[in-house]
């Protein structure tokens, strides 16, 4: 394989070849042909995302360990956590749905936070080993399956439906899910995978040269 110019890129949605120009602060580079966003200027991406991810990890634990909502009727109290919902689905004989719900609401977000923390911590000292790239690939692939915001809306709809039958109490877990939803969106906005890739050792072993050329590439971009 011969080497290609650093900034040359093919748009991932229409395959048009182009080079990404220096992006002004707060700006974005879009494909002139299909309008796909190719790159966004994300100042201090890794540090910001790391702090958001640490916050998300704490809120995630709170959201999962506290009751999501409770119900009181005829002198009885019932409450559930997120996983409790999936568990009840399983007990009622809908095992596949239970697994799917558990995956989208708990497992995928947990993997997202865990992998994100690992990636962000390891790439602080480049060159990072190439398994970090595997985590990053998995992160991108599974992102649509972490459905915190869809779950939030689902909780609200269920809450209003049940409020017709009995009095419902919103638990701490529900506020946790709300905050987690915002943190996930903020992580997505602040995270720049392009910067991470320049810090990872290549799968074919071309490590030191990559870091050097990537850094010079970056300084060229930011220079006058």
């Amino acid at each position: 394989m011969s080497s290609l110019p650093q900034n040359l890129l093919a748009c991932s949605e229409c395959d048009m070849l182009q080079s990404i120009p220096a992006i002004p602060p707060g700006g974005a580079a879009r494909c002139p042909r299909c309008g796909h966003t190719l790159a966004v200027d994300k100042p201090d991406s890794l540090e910001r995302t790391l702090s958001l991810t640490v916050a998300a990890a704490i809120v995630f634990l709170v959201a999962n360990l506290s009751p999501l909502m409770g119900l009181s009727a005829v002198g009885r109290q019932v409450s559930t956590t997120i996983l409790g919902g999936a568990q009840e689905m399983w007990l009622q004989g809908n095992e596949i749905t239970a697994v799917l719900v558990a995956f989208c609401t708990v497992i995928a977000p947990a993997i997202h936070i865990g992998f994100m923390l690992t990636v962000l911590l390891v790439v602080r000292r480049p060159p990072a080993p190439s398994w970090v790239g595997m985590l990053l690939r998995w992160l991108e692939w599974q992102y649509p399956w972490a459905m915190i915001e869809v779950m939030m809306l689902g909780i609200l709809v269920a809450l209003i439906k049940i409020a017709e039958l009995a009095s419902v109490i919103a638990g701490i877990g529900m506020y946790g899910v709300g905050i987690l939803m915002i943190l996930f969106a903020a992580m997505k906005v602040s995270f720049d995978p392009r910067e991470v890739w320049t810090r990872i050792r290549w799968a074919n072993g071309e490590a030191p040269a990559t870091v050097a050329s990537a850094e010079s590439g970056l300084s060229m971009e930011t220079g006058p």
Partner: protein
Amino acid sequence: MSTGILTGRKLGLVLCEACRLLSRPIDIDEPGHCPRCGNELSLRRKNAIQRTWALILAAAICYIPANILPVLNTITTVSTDDDTIIDGVILLYKTGSWPLALIVLIASVVIPLAKLFALSYLLLSVQHRTAVGRHERVRLYRLVEIVGRWSMLDVFVDTFTVALIQLQPLMSVKPGPGVIFFAAVVVLTMIAAQTFDPRLIWDAGEDKEGPDD
């Protein structure tokens, strides 16, 4: 911007879908693995058209039982009541929360159906090598990709309803057989959107490149 657009396909360059590195493989038909991240390279997503069609067909088949079979089964001391997705929407509407009824209706009924039609339309237009309306079709594809996961809404609503309403013997709610079919529709259409390759929309026009509007 018309005939002169250079694409990776024309110059024998492959973009890695995982790490976005552009590389020049020795053989464009067998590009091997990405030198940077080790991901398997391919010029276009493999068998995108056949795979997407297969997933759409499977989803369309599941869409019928998903809407006919009950998703919730309410048991009280005096009665048992089976509710389909539409029954749930009607219930929300009757109890006065029409905005929520509308949200559930759109997420559970309209979006899955619209996704099936949109993806079928995209596939047919690519197979017929249509060159017009590429910008509109790319926008349609992005919409399908973004909106799709919101259909999971009803699965979550059902789960939390089942989890909370367990006041035996007064009242309890069990999940119905429709939930699994409905979940299957959502999952299959989400995967279908991921197997389709939007670059095919642009490839189609390139051989008879017209004005690129």
